[in-house]
C-alpha cells in the first residue's frame, strides 16, 4: 500500500466538520416501497423522496412554481448512473426529507445519489433506476390504506373517493400515482397530459379494470393519473387497487365501492360511515362476543401422541368505547376474491384508551347443549370457560343466541344469534410456482381469510398479505399480482371465523364470532 508523505505543519484545531447531509433512504414518493421489495426501484420521471439528516432548512420550503428548480433553499440533488450525471428537480426540501423528480433522461441501472446543502455534499447512496415502478398515492401519505382517487361524476364534480363517497360499478375513477414511466418533454415543466405507451393494468379487487388514461397529470410534475372504470361485482370499503406495469406491481391501496348509495359496507358489517368516524379518531361504542374452541395445552408435557391436547371451550366478550386500534372487530378486510399486500412494520396510530361500557352483569348463551353464562370479570370484560375435555362438549355445531337480560346502564338489552357451522378444515400449498388454499366445512355464506407472509432470503425485505374468499368457493389461488409484490414465495395460512352483527341501544357496532 502506498502512503502519502508526512504532512507536517497542518494544524488542526477544533473545526468540526459535521454539517454535511446524510442519506438514509431513497423511496418512491407514493408507495414508500422499502429497499429489497420488488417495486423499490425509482422510475424515470417519477417523484421520489430522500430521507436523511441535514439535507435542507429546518422548515420545509417548497418550489414556488414551474419550472421546478434544481437548487432550492440551498439544497440540490445529483444522480449519477454510469458516466451520466443529472440534477433532480426539487419539489420541497427539509432537513430530514427532500422530494424531487428524477429526470426522464436518467439512464436505468444502479444510481448514486448525493445531496448537497449549503455547499456540503453527502456521501452517495445507491438506488436502482428503472423505467417504470408505479406507486399509488394514498390518503395517509404513507403508501398504505385508502388511495388518493376521485370519483368522476362530471367535469365539475369529482369528489375524493372515501368511505362515505363510494364509487359504483362502471363509474370512472381517477387514481393519483407516480412512477408510470418517462416522458419525452421536460420533467421540470408543468406536464402536458399524454397517454403513455405502457403495458399497464389496474387491478380492482383483483379484477382488471378498463383503463381510459394513463399518463402525467396536468397539474404536477412527476405525478401521474390513471383513469379507469370500476369493474362489476366488486364492493366493499377496502377494495384493493394496484397498478401493474409489465411485472412490476405498485403498492396495494384501497378504494370504497358501494352497490348503491354513497356509503360502503365493510366485510365485517360495519358501515363506511362508522369506519370513517373511527378513522377520524372518534371513539365509538363496540361490542365483540367470541365463542372459542381451542385445542391447547396448559402444561409443557401435553400434546404428544400419548397425551393429546384437550379441547378448551370458552366464551368471552368486551364492551368498550374506543378508537379504531382497540376495536376487536376485524375491519378493513378486502372483499371476497381479493387481496391486500402490506409492507412490514405498518402499524396504526394509537387513538385514545378504551373505556369500559356497562352491558349488564352476565351474558346468557343458549345453544344446542343448553344454557351457559359468560360472567363479567372486570368492567367491560366478560369471560367464561364452558368445558374442557378430550372432545367438544358444549360448542357443537348449531345455533346460539346470546342475550344480556335487561342490559346495563350503557348498553341496552340485545339478542345476538350465531350459527356455528360444521367443522372447518383447510390445506395450503405454496411454492415459487404459486400459492393456493382449499377447505371444506364452514358456513357457505361466510368467508375465509387467507393470510400470507414472505421474507426475502437475500435481503431484509418483508411483506405480508391478506385475502378473503367465500366459504362456498372451497378454494383460493393467490393472484399473480400479489406474488409479484412479494420479495419471496409466501408462507400461507387460512383463518375462518363465522361472524354475525347485532344491534343494541348504546352500541355503534356489535359483532359475535366463533373461532376454532
Amino acid at each position, binding site marked *: 500500500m*502506498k*502512503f502519502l508523505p508526512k*504532512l507536517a505543519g497542518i494544524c488542526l484545531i477544533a473545526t468540526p466538520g459535521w454539517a454535511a447531509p446524510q442519506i438514509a433512504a431513497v423511496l418512491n414518493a407514493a408507495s414508500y416501497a422499502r*429497499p429489497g421489495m420488488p417495486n423499490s426501484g425509482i422510475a424515470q420521471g417519477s417523484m421520489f423522496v430522500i430521507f436523511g439528516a441535514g439535507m435542507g432548512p429546518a422548515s420545509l420550503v417548497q418550489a414556488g412554481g414551474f419550472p421546478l428548480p434544481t437548487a432550492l433553499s440551498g439544497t440540490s440533488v445529483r444522480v449519477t448512473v454510469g458516466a451520466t450525471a443529472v440534477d433532480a428537480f426539487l419539489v420541497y426540501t427539509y432537513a430530514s426529507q427532500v422530494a424531487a423528480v428524477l429526470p426522464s433522461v436518467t439512464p436505468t441501472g444502479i444510481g448514486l445519489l448525493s445531496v448537497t446543502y449549503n455547499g456540503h455534499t453527502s*456521501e*452517495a447512496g445507491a438506488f436502482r433506476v428503472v423505467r417504470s415502478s408505479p406507486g399509488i398515492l394514498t390518503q395517509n401519505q404513507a403508501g398504505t390504506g385508502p388511495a388518493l382517487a376521485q370519483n368522476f361524476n362530471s367535469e365539475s364534480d369529482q369528489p375524493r373517493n372515501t368511505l362515505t363517497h363510494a364509487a359504483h360499478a362502471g363509474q370512472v375513477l381517477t387514481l393519483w400515482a407516480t412512477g408510470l414511466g418517462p416522458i419525452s418533454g421536460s420533467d421540470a415543466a408543468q406536464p402536458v397530459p399524454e397517454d403513455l405507451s405502457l403495458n399497464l393494468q389496474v387491478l380492482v379487487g383483483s379484477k382488471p379494470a378498463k383503463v381510459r388514461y394513463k399518463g402525467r397529470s396536468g397539474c404536477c410534475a412527476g405525478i401521474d393519473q390513471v383513469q379507469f372504470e370500476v369493474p362489476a361485482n366488486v364492493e366493499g370499503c377496502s377494495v384493493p387497487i394496484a397498478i401493474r406495469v409489465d411485472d412490476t406491481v405498485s403498492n396495494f391501496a384501497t378504494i370504497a365501492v358501494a352497490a348503491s348509495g354513497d356509503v360502503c359496507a365493510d366485510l365485517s358489517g360495519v358501515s363506511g360511515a362508522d369506519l370513517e368516524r373511527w378513522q377520524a379518531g372518534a371513539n365509538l361504542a363496540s361490542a365483540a362476543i367470541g365463542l372459542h374452541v381451542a385445542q391447547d395445552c396448559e402444561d409443557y408435557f401435553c400434546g404428544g401422541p400419548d397425551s393429546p391436547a384437550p379441547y378448551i371451550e370458552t366464551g368471552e366478550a368486551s364492551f368498550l368505547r374506543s378508537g379504531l386500534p382497540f376495536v376487536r372487530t376485524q375491519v378493513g378486510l378486502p372483499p371476497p376474491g381479493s387481496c391486500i399486500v402490506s409492507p412490514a412494520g405498518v402499524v396504526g396510530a394509537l387513538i385514545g384508551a378504551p373505556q369500559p361500557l356497562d352491558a349488564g352483569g352476565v351474558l346468557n348463551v343458549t345453544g344446542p347443549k343448553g344454557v351457559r353464562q359468560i360472567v363479567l370479570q372486570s368492567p367491560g370484560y366478560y369471560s367464561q370457560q364452558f368445558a374442557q375435555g378430550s372432545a367438544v362438549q358444549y360448542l357443537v355445531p348449531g345455533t346460539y343466541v346470546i342475550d344480556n337480560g335487561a342490559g346495563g346502564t350503557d348498553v341496552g338489552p340485545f339478542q345476538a344469534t350465531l350459527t356455528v357451522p360444521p367443522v372447518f378444515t383447510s390445506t395450503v400449498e405454496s411454492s415459487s410456482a404459486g400459492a393456493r388454499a382449499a377447505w371444506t366445512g364452514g358456513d357457505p355464506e361466510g368467508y375465509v381469510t387467507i393470510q400470507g407472509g414472505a421474507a426475502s432470503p437475500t435481503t431484509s425485505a418483508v411483506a405480508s398479505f391478506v385475502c378473503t374468499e367465500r366459504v362456498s368457493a372451497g378454494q383460493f389461488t393467490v393472484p399473480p399480482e400479489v406474488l409479484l409484490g412479494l420479495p419471496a414465495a409466501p408462507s400461507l395460512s387460512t383463518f375462518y371465523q363465522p361472524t354475525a352483527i347485532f344491534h343494541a341501544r348504546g352500541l355503534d357496532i356489535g359483532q359475535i364470532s366463533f373461532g376454532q
Partner: protein
Amino acid sequence: MTCFLWPVPARLILLAGLAASGARGQPSIAAAINSASFEPALSHGCLVSIFGANLAGSTASAGSLPLPRKLGGTTVTVGDLQIEAPLSFVSPGQINAQIPFEVLGDRVPLWVATAAGKSQPYFVTLAASAPGLFSRSSDGKGPVLAFNQNFQPVDQAVPGSFLTLYATGLGATDPPAQSGSGGAGAEPLNRVVVPPEVFIGEYPARVDFAGLAPGLNGVYQLNVVPQRMGSDRVFIRAGGVSSNIASIASVPGNNVGNASGSIQALYPAADATSPPVMYSPLLLLVKFTARMDILPSAGSFLISAVTDAGTTFIDVDPAAGTFTGTITVPSTPSRFGDFSGAGLMAVDFATCNGGGTGGVTCLPFPGNIIPASRISPLELDALRSVPAPDAAIPNSPNGTIQVRGSVRAGSTFAIDDQNNAPLAVLGGYFSIPAPSNFPGYTGTTTVKLFIDGRLAASTDVPYRVGFF
C-alpha cells in the same frame, strides 16, 4: 500549537490472515466484524473483516488505492443492490474489505463470491457510526495505537498533551469520501459528520480533529488532547455507540504513598462455573479496598475503579479537606430485573437458536423484564450487599450513589468495609455482545483500581453463558 496529520503504519491495515489453503468449494461466511474492534458493530465506510472458509483461492493484497472491487478472484457484495465492496486483503479464511458508503439500509446482506460460487447471504447491521479503535495488537484489545506530535508511538497519555489515535467506523465525512479511496491529504480534509467523543481515562478528551486519515482507506484519525485521567481506558462514543475499550497508561501523580488495593468480584466470579448465567445483560458486582497515605503537600487526585459495567470515581481534594465519591450501582428497577426503562435489551439465552453462518437468534424477555425465577440466587445475595442508588442514570439500568466526606493531608485514607464502606462497591449491568458460539460462551471483563494515576489492582472477572 503544533499538531499534525500523518498516515498510519501499514501494519494497522493488514490484519493477519489465516493460512492460505486454496479454495476448494463454495465460500461460506462465519462472521463479519469491525476490523478495529473485532466486534459486530459496523457502519457505512467501515473496515470489515470477514471470516469463513473458501473465501478466496489464494492470498492477495491490494497494492494501491483506490482499492479494487475484485481481488484474487474474490468479490464481496453488500446490500440488496449488491454493491461491490473495496478489498484490501483476501485469503481463504479472511477478507479485509470496506463497507461501501453507497449502501443504504441498516440491516443488509453481504455475500462473498469466488470462481467456486457464491456464499449464502450474511446479514450485518449498519449504523451511522460504529466506532472501532485500533489497538497495537490489531484485535481491539490492550494498548491503543497512539502517537505523539512527532509521530512517535506513545505508551502514556499526559493531560494537556497531544495524541493521535486511529479508528474505523466513524461513518460519513464532509466532504464525502469515495469508497475504496483514501482520505484527502490536504484541505478540505474528510471530517466526520457525526461528532465523536473520545474518552481517555474515563474523561472526555478535547477532539481537535476527527476525519479520514490522509491516504488511508476507511481509517479515521483522531487528534485529541486528554484533559484528566481516572484510569487507563480509551474508548470512543459516536452517535450513541461506544467502541471497544483499549488502554493507555496514565501518568502517576505525586500525591500519595504506600498506595494499595484489592478487588473482589462478588458476581459472577463466584458463579462462573455453575450454574451458568442465563441472560444478558450480565450483572457485575465488585467490592474493592483502597488504602494510601496522603502526602503532606498533596494536591487533588483521583481514586477510580472501572469496569465495562460501571465506575467509581473518588475525587480527593486534601487542600479543601474533602472527598466526593460517585459510584454506579444497580438501580432499583434493575434490582428486580426490570429493564423496561433501560436502553439495553435483556435477552433470554434459553430461547437462542440457529448458529453457523446464519448467526444466533435469541429472543428478548417479554417487556424487557427478567423474571425473578431466572435470576441466580447468588446474584440476589450479591445485590443485597450493594447500597441502593440515589438516582437512576437516564437511559441506563445503573444508578448512582453520591458520598461525601472529609479528608486530611498527611494522613492515611482508606476505603473498605469498615471505613467509607459505601464507596467500596460498584456494580452494574453490561450487555454481552452475541458471539457466534452462544450458548456456552465464556468471557472475561477486567476490573481495575487506580489510585492517583497508579494501577493499584486489576482483576479479570470470568463469566459463562449457557443453558440450564
